């Protein structure tokens, strides 16, 4: 089994040998699709007059849920068990995988159909099952493509966002020996034909959970392709894996979240299918695995708690200009984009993921679109602060020294002038250098430096400031014409 640590260390943003952040070029298809989705979904969300009110409400419900996880999870377990579900707890991915392998053994499972689930990506479940001789097939079209290609998802909602229709046609031709086509309908036909058989043959279905309702003990799974419905109902055994943060107090809050999730995720008013699983159906076995896997680390950091409110809609990925250009793999783990940059450091530790919060221009687009109002941009800065102060790849005594010197220089006007005069001189001289080192070189790689003016504003003010400081009455300036009044 690949450990998350190993997986991470190979990721472009995180490689230890990279001093800064390596910058892979994501695929063009990914950038364009993410931008298109973002614009479309934003239009859909803003057309809801009470969108902001929904966000506030969802934030409040999630806040309550996360602060009361201890009670709600136990209530959920009790009610789910009363409906015939077998509820299992797992502290980490390893324990969750152990549960699954035991279930596999108990029910003599040879083949598994999986519907899309990010949490099972955290567990590297497909590898674990393969190692145990179980064939696990992804049934979500995007996941299916990514699995066929031997890749990892680039996105949490649209895993194959990086593949164009032509890419998919070539993939099917190569792996499924189908005649090449790039027509969308034909491609989905091919996938459907290959997948249909599998549902009927499978011994077990594995799914994630979108929402777990404490008061009814039921789980909700949303999807658009019908694959989740088949995966959880055709085979005789269904295992649903959920992170501890998926629980909400009651089913009465579900419509609110469904409204937010579909619109933010795919620009739909509602997903095509919404499954609510109320316990086990007669003759079938239903397991629910509740997984922590580092999530309770987040609870210890009050400033980061709202990152657990995430409903995995992917809106922040689509909105992020950095994600659009680097793609999902750059982030090194299951969750890419802004949300990945703030949760991965908690889930796998700063030692491995300390660089992620720096992969952002702090533009704030993520926070603006988040349907549950996670303050992602502020958390990025919060995590940068944590990263430079804890064992992590970005903690650097040298960089600390530079900022200490900067801080000293900026804490007094004379030192400021001295430091800034040096900077001005440096920028002036840079024009004559044949080669620019370090940060200077990073700037001039694609940009001209600003011109250095002959004087500074403070020097100018010393000469002319008196003209500005006088009171109205004495200055001799004409009475101000305030122009057109506007309401503030």
């Amino acid at each position: 089994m690949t450990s998350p640590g190993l997986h991470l260390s190979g990721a472009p943003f995180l490689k230890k040998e990279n001093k800064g952040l390596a910058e892979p070029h994501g695929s063009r298809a990914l950038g364009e699709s993410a931008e298109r989705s973002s614009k479309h979904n934003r239009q859909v969300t803003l057309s809801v007059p009470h969108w902001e009110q929904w966000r506030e409400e969802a934030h409040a419900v999630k806040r309550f849920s996360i602060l009361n996880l201890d009670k709600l999870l136990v209530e959920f377990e009790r009610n789910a068990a009363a409906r015939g579900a077998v509820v299992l707890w797992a502290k980490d991915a390893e324990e969750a995988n152990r549960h699954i392998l035991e279930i596999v053994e108990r029910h003599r499972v040879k083949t598994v159909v999986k519907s899309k689930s990010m949490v099972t990506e955290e567990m590297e479940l497909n590898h674990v099952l393969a190692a145990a001789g179980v064939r696990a097939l992804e049934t979500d079209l995007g996941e299916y493509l990514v699995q066929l290609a031997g890749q990892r998802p680039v996105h949490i909602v649209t895993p194959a966002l990086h593949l164009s229709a032509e890419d998919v046609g070539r993939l099917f031709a190569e792996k499924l020996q189908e005649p090449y086509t790039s027509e969308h309908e034909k491609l989905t036909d091919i996938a459907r034909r290959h997948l249909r058989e599998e549902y009927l043959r499978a011994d077990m279905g594995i799914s994630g959970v979108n929402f777990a309702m404490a008061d009814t003990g039921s789980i909700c799974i949303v999807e658009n392709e019908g694959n989740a419905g088949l995966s959880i109902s055709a085979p005789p055994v269904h295992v649903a894996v959920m992170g501890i943060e998926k629980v909400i107090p009651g089913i009465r809050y579900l419509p609110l979240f469904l409204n937010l999730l579909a619109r933010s995720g795919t620009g739909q008013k509602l997903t095509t299918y919404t499954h609510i699983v109320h316990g086990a159906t007669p003759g079938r076995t239903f397991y629910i695995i509740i997984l922590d896997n580092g999530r309770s680390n987040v609870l210890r950091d009050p400033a980061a708690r709202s990152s657990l409110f995430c409903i995995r809609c992917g809106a922040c990925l689509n909105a992020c200009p950095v994600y659009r250009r680097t793609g999902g793999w750059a982030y090194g783990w299951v969750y890419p984009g802004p949300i990945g940059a703030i949760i991965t450091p908690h889930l796998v530790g700063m030692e491995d993921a300390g660089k992620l919060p720096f992969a952002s221009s702090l533009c704030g687009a993520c926070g603006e679109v988040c349907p549950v109002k996670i303050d992602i941009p502020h958390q990025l800065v919060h995590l940068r602060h944590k990263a430079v102060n804890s064992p992590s790849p970005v903690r650097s005594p040298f960089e600390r020294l530079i900022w200490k010197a900067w801080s000293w220089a900026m804490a007094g006007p004379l030192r400021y002038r001295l430091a800034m005069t040096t900077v001005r001189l440096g920028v002036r001289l840079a024009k004559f250098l044949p080669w620019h080192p370090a940060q200077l070189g990073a700037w001039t790689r694609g940009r001209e430096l600003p011109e250095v003016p002959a004087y500074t504003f403070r020097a100018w003010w010393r000469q002319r400031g008196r003209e500005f400081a006088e009171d109205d009455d004495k200055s001799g300036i004409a009475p101000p014409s305030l122009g057109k009044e506007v309401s503030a």
Partner: protein
Amino acid sequence: MIHLTNGLPDGKYPSYNRGEKAALFIPCYIDQFFPQIAEATAAILKNLGIPIVFPEGQTCCGQPAFNSGYWEEAARVVRHFCDVFRPYQYVVCPSGSCTAMCRVFFEQVDPDERIVSVGRRVFELSEFLVNVVGVADLGARFPHKVTMHSGCHGRRELGILDQPLTLLQNVKDLVYCELPNIEECCGFGGTFSVKMPGTSIAMGETKAANILRSGADVVTSVDISCLMHVGGILKRNPQMRHIRPMHIAEILVQR
């Protein structure tokens, strides 16, 4: 566009009474590299009859260290800032980004009320003019085609978008050109610009292409830091070299 917050506790701007003094906070890069913007800011306020002071002890708002994670180092600079600006009721700054640092993020650096209250008295120039003083027409004339870049910090942290647009609308003979994808980041991002230069430049090139597409000869903004980055890209490109980056204050003083 949704304005959720302007960084003020009650969301309400104070209203300026004639004769009250305003202190200028001139961010370090403007002081050193773009003094004409600070001069224009001073001239605009003077023309409105607002007495201004420039506390000479001022240095920087602390943002570079803060955004890089060095909050302890930022705190020292923030405290110095607050010592310098404590006596003033209004602090006016020709940068949305630095204003956001003062008004929104000082609290993170040091929640001491004496720090936070000074930060909350800092206003970006265009919002000071429109929301605090209550003026929209400065009597400027600028016969050029102009587009506007909206800096992310100013817009998303302080809700600044309508104010500079309103001010530009009232400039005589100015032809406003819509900027495609105005909501998108230009890719500057402070130290991000040199930590991830490839991505930063790619974002800047997209922004530059949109500026070209707008058909404008001048690109303006309340943030010259963004324009320093985008302008650096425009200057490199022969097809874009003719587009002049100008801070909004430079346009508002044209007669």
